[in-house]
C-alpha cells in the first residue's frame, strides 16, 4: 500500500509538472503570437500592448471589450494579454511587450505593488505606460504617464450635489438613509466619503441611518425594511452605493406603502440597465454612472501623449449622471 501510494505521488507530481509546463508555454505563445507587422507602424498608427487583469466580472468584460475595440477602431494595432489575476503573467506580458518594441503599454495592475522593476524596464526602453482602472503604489510616479479610472469619491460627490440641487428651497431637515456597499471595499468607502464631504457643508441634510447592504438586492431590501420600520415616514432620501441595492430598497418602500421616487427620493450609483428600467417606471430618481466603457477616452489620451501634450497623473473617467426624465429615452441604448 505504502509503496503504491509513493508511486502514485511520483506520478502525480510528474503530471503536475507537465501540466504546469504546458500552461506556461501556451501563455508565452499567447503573448507573442500577435506580433509581426509592428515594424511598419507609421507616425499615426501605434502598436499598443494591453495587459488586462482578467475576466472576473461583467464590468471587467465590458471594460476589456471597450478598450480593445477603441484601439482597433482608431486604426492602431493591439496586442492583448489576459493575466488571469496573476501578477507573474502580467510581468511576463509587459516584458514581452517591451521585447516586441510596442509604442505604448496599457496596463490594469492586478495588485498595487511589485511592478517597479518591470516598469523601469519599460521606461528605459522609452515606452510610455498608461494605467487604467487600478492604480499602483510606488514612490516614483515618472514610471507611468497617467492613471485613468473611475473616481469613486467623485461619484459620491456627484450624487450629493445632485441631491442638494434637487432639494433647493425645501425647508427643514432632510433625512437621508444610506445603503453602503460591502464593508471595506474601495467603492463603499469612497462613495460614502464623497457623499459625506458635500453633506458636511449642508447642515440641514442629515444621514440618520447608514448600514451595509453588501451590494446585493436581497440585503438592500432587508435593510431598507428595517429602516422603514424604525424611521418610516421621516425618511426623505435613500442613497445606495449601487443600483442593485437601490432596486431592492425600492421594493421594500413599495411594500411599506410609500411611493419610491416621490415620497422617498432614490439615488443609486453604477447606471446599470435595471436602474434605467426603474427610472423609466418613475420609481428611481437618479443614478450616477460608473463607466467601464472608457476605451475611447483612453485612446484619445494616448494620442494626445504622442502629440506631445503633458497629461495629468490622475484622470477620472468621464462619467455622467442620469435622471428619471432621461431614462426612457436612454434605456434601449444601455449595453450592460
Amino acid at each position: 500500500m505504502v509503496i503504491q501510494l509513493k508511486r502514485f505521488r511520483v506520478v502525480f507530481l510528474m503530471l503536475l509538472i507537465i501540466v504546469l509546463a504546458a500552461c506556461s508555454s501556451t501563455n508565452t505563445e499567447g503573448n507573442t503570437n500577435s506580433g509581426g507587422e509592428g515594424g511598419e507602424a507609421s507616425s499615426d498608427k501605434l502598436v499598443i500592448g494591453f495587459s488586462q487583469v482578467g475576466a472576473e466580472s461583467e464590468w471587467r468584460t465590458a471594460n476589456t471589450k471597450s478598450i480593445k475595440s477603441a484601439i482597433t477602431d482608431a486604426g492602431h494595432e493591439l496586442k492583448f494579454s489576459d493575466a488571469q489575476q496573476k501578477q507573474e503573467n502580467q510581468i511576463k506580458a509587459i516584458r514581452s511587450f517591451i521585447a516586441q518594441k510596442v509604442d505604448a503599454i496599457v496596463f490594469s495592475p492586478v495588485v498595487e505593488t511589485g511592478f517597479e522593476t518591470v516598469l523601469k524596464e519599460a521606461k528605459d526602453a522609452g515606452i510610455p505606460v498608461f494605467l487604467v482602472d487600478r492604480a499602483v503604489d510606488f514612490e516614483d510616479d515618472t514610471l507611468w504617464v497617467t492613471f485613468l479610472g473611475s473616481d469613486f469619491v467623485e461619484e459620491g460627490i456627484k450624487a450629493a450635489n445632485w441631491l442638494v440641487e434637487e432639494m433647493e428651497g425645501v425647508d427643514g431637515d432632510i433625512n437621508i438613509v444610506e445603503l453602503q456597499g460591502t464593508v471595506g471595499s474601495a467603492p463603499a468607502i469612497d462613495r460614502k466619503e464623497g457623499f459625506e464631504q458635500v453633506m458636511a457643508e449642508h447642515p440641514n441634510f442629515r444621514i440618520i441611518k447608514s448600514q451595509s447592504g453588501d451590494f446585493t438586492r436581497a440585503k438592500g431590501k432587508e435593510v431598507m425594511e428595517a429602516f422603514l420600520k424604525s424611521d418610516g415616514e421621516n425618511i426623505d432620501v435613500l442613497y445606495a452605493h449601487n443600483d442593485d441595492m437601490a432596486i431592492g430598497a425600492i421594493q421594500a418602500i413599495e411594500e411599506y406603502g410609500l411611493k419610491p421616487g416621490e415620497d422617498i427620493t432614490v439615488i443609486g450609483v453604477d447606471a446599470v440597465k435595471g436602474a434605467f428600467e426603474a427610472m423609466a417606471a418613475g420609481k428611481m430618481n437618479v443614478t450616477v454612472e460608473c463607466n467601464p466603457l472608457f476605451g475611447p477616452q483612453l485612446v484619445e489620451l494616448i494620442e494626445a501623449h504622442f502629440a506631445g501634450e503633458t497629461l495629468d497623473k490622475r484622470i477620472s473617467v468621464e462619467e455622467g449622471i442620469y435622471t428619471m426624465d432621461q431614462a426612457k429615452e436612454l434605456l434601449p441604448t444601455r449595453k450592460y
Partner: protein
Amino acid sequence: MLKSRLFWPVIILLIILAINLFFDPGFFKIEVKNGHLTGSLVDIVNRGAPLMLISIGMTLVIATKGIDLGVGSVIAMSGSIAAMTVVQGMASDTSLTPLFMAIAAALGLSLAAGLWNGLLVSRIGIQPIVATLILMVAGRGIAQLITDGQITTIYYEPYSFIGGGYLFAIPFSVYLVAAVLGIALYMTKKTALGLFIQSVGANPEASRLAGINSKNIILLVYLFSGFCAGVGGLILSSNVSSADGNNAGLWFELDAILAVVIGGTSLMGGRFFLMGSVIGALIIQSLTTTIYSIGIPPETNLIVKAVVVIIVCLLQSPEFRQKVLRPRMKKPHKKEPENSLNEQGVKIS
C-alpha cells in the same frame, strides 16, 4: 424535556426583542397596512422564513450525525432555475402555468441535489462534510451557469407571491414554514421515523443490526434538506423578483448550522429539537433586524453577532450553567420538581 431545552433559546429571543424596545418604542407595534400586517415582528418572521425552513432540514441531517454544507448553493440553484423557467415561459404564456413550471423545476433540481448528497453519504460512504462540500462549491457554479452570471430580473406578478405575497393578511412564506414544520413534526413525533433518525445518529451500525434501514434514513434526511433549501431558494428569489447566482443564499449553511446548535441539537447526532432550530433561526434573524434598526455601524455588525452567539452558546451549555449560574439559579428551579429531573436527563446524555 423539550421544555427545558427550549427555555434558554426562548429567553434569549425575548431579551433580543426587548432590547429593541429601548431604542424604538414602536418595535412591537403591528398594524394593518394595505390589507396586510406590517411591523418589525412580521418582518422578522417573514425574512427569517428561508432560514427557518433550512434549519428544519438541517436539524434532521445533523440528527443523523451528518451535516449539509450544500444548502446555500441549493438556494442559489433553486432560485436561478425558477427564474429562468419563468422568464422563458412568460413569453408564450401569461397564465399561471409558468409559475407552476418554475416551482416544479426548482423543487426538482433541489431534490436532485439532495439525492446526490444522500447517495454520496449513504451509499458511497463519503464523510458528510466532504460529500456536501462538493455541492457547496459546484452548486454555485451551476447556478451561475443557469443565470449566465447575470442578475436576472423577473417581471411576472404571480412569481413574487411566493416570497412577497400575503394570504389572510399574513405573509405567504409563513404558511410555507408552518406547512414544512408541521410535516416534519408529524413525521418525527407521530411515526417511528423520528426514533429511527435518532438511533441512526446515535449508532448507525447498531441501528442496522436492529433492523433499521440506516442507508435509506440517511438518504431521506438529505433529500428533505435539499427540499427545504429549494423552498427557501424560491422564497428568497421571489422576494426580490430576481435570481442572483452569485449571492443568493451565500453563507446560509453556516447560519442554518448555527440555528440548529442554538436550538439545542448536538452536532454529535442523536436527539434533535425541531422547534429549537426554528427559534434559533428566529434569534439570528431578530439579531440581524435589531442591528439594522438600532443603527449599529456596519463595521461592527459581525462582532456584535459573534458576541451574542457566544453568550447563547454559553447559556446552552449545561456545564457552564452549572459552574457559573447554578448558585443563583438554584432556588427558583427547586420549586418545580420536574425541572430538576430534566437537568439530570441532560447530564446523562
